[in-house]
């Protein structure tokens, strides 16, 4: 029997994995002596994407690689498979997460300063348990406070391939002197 097309092999691997796979990982499903170039894998992924168009699944690049996923339009149907409603997060959690995402690396004290309230350790624990944030280091300041950053899982979870894909921060009404420009690398266009 002849060998299946590369895009079919990738399709099979991605579905069997059920999680994002990096190009390196996709290359490694081929035997050493027949390992395709990165470029060839990327081209096969492109063919796969095209072949999936208009079906119940799409290929998407997220932070930790490529993932086959059921697109948003199917959510109303798919959600009915499960009794449980998806978790909702409190405003406190979302605001804290947003501050960390846009201002990372950032200390707990700095988060509190922006929000104007003490940060409950419950919130930080929730975010860490979800694997969305991690301690990225310690600031060289009295007490050596931990600085927090978001993880690749965070990006994967929110369907983003990099921090650059985050929605741009709301424009400040007037060019205030305080925050001339916000610090997202290239806040070109948000979301999809």
């Amino acid at each position, binding site marked *: 029997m002849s060998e299946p097309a590369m895009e079919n092999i990738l399709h099979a691997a*991605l*579905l*069997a*994995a*059920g*999680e994002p796979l990096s190009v390196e990982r996709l290359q490694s499903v081929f035997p050493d002596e027949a390992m395709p170039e990165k470029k060839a894998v990327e081209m096969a992924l492109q063919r796969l994407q095209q072949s999936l168009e208009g079906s119940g*699944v799409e290929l998407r690049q997220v932070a930790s690689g490529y*993932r*086959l*996923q*059921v*697109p*948003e339009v*199917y*959510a109303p149907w*798919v*959600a009915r498979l499960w009794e449980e409603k*998806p*978790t*909702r*997060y*409190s*405003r406190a*959690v*979302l*605001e*804290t*997460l*947003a*501050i960390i*995402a*846009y201002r990372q690396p950032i200390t707990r004290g700095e988060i509190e300063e*922006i*929000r*104007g*309230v*003490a940060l*409950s350790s*419950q*919130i930080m624990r*929730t975010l860490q348990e979800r694997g969305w944030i991690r301690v990225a280091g310690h600031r060289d300041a009295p007490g050596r406070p931990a600085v927090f950053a978001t993880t690749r899982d965070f990006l*994967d*979870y*929110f*369907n*983003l391939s990099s921090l650059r894909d*985050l*929605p741009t*921060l*709301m424009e*400040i*009404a*007037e060019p*205030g002197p*305080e*925050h001339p420009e*916000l610090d997202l690398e290239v806040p070109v266009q*948000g*979301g*999809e």
Partner: protein
Amino acid sequence: MSEPTAGELLEPEVVATVRGEPFAELPRDLYIPPDALEVFLETFEGPLDLLLYLIRRQNLDILDIPIAEITRQYMAYVDLMKDLRLELAAEYLVMAAMLAEIKSRMLLPRPPSADEDEEHDPRAELVRRLREYEQFKEAGSDLDNLPRVARDIFPASAAAPSLRPATRAPQVDLAELLAAFAEVLERAQMFSHHQIQREALSVRERMSETLTRLDGERFLALTDLLRAEEGRAGVVVTFLAILELLKASLVELVQAEPFAPLYLRSGALMSEGEGVVV
């Protein structure tokens, strides 16, 4: 969607977007039924959030806050919280003190010849913080609107075929092999005094080859092992290999009668074998 539990972390975002919600139509005199008020007040994420709400509700310009009026309203809410014995975070009181201070500084006559008056607006720092907070409040809700795994998008998976466990064999390079050999020899020299000499690998190879051929054919004429195309060097190598094999008792040479052809046979057969051993 009603009645979020106080302080619960994963509570629904119920009344959070206060603007436009029923609560936004609070009577100016601040009277609301205590139950509703409790829910209302607990939706604030802190003094900045409350202040922002007061400003936005009245469509006030954040850059030009009527500080006296806002302070009065803010204090009224804080008092209400106290009356309701809501757990009042210390930050609310700190903010109250800050507002009072700004108010009093606004009342002081400003030195007319001061440098840029803008910079000395006592409200500046408060405005900066309010705007920054508002940005992230918005960002938090933007984040919530992003398509999210398990809510809007679902990782696709299918049953994997039955898998034989695969293990990838370790990789070795030639230099490693040589280094290992060198080390062994070095060690061996420490144990024994006999000098291990540099080997003629071609002889070793021919030894292995010969054994392999014998494995299949049991007997081989000596002449079959010699290949003319290898020339003299080849013949020498083969002879040396055979001598080595003989010495190691891996093969024997047999001859049916004097001057008959010499045959090589595998050592494995020797116990059953007969014939003249040369």
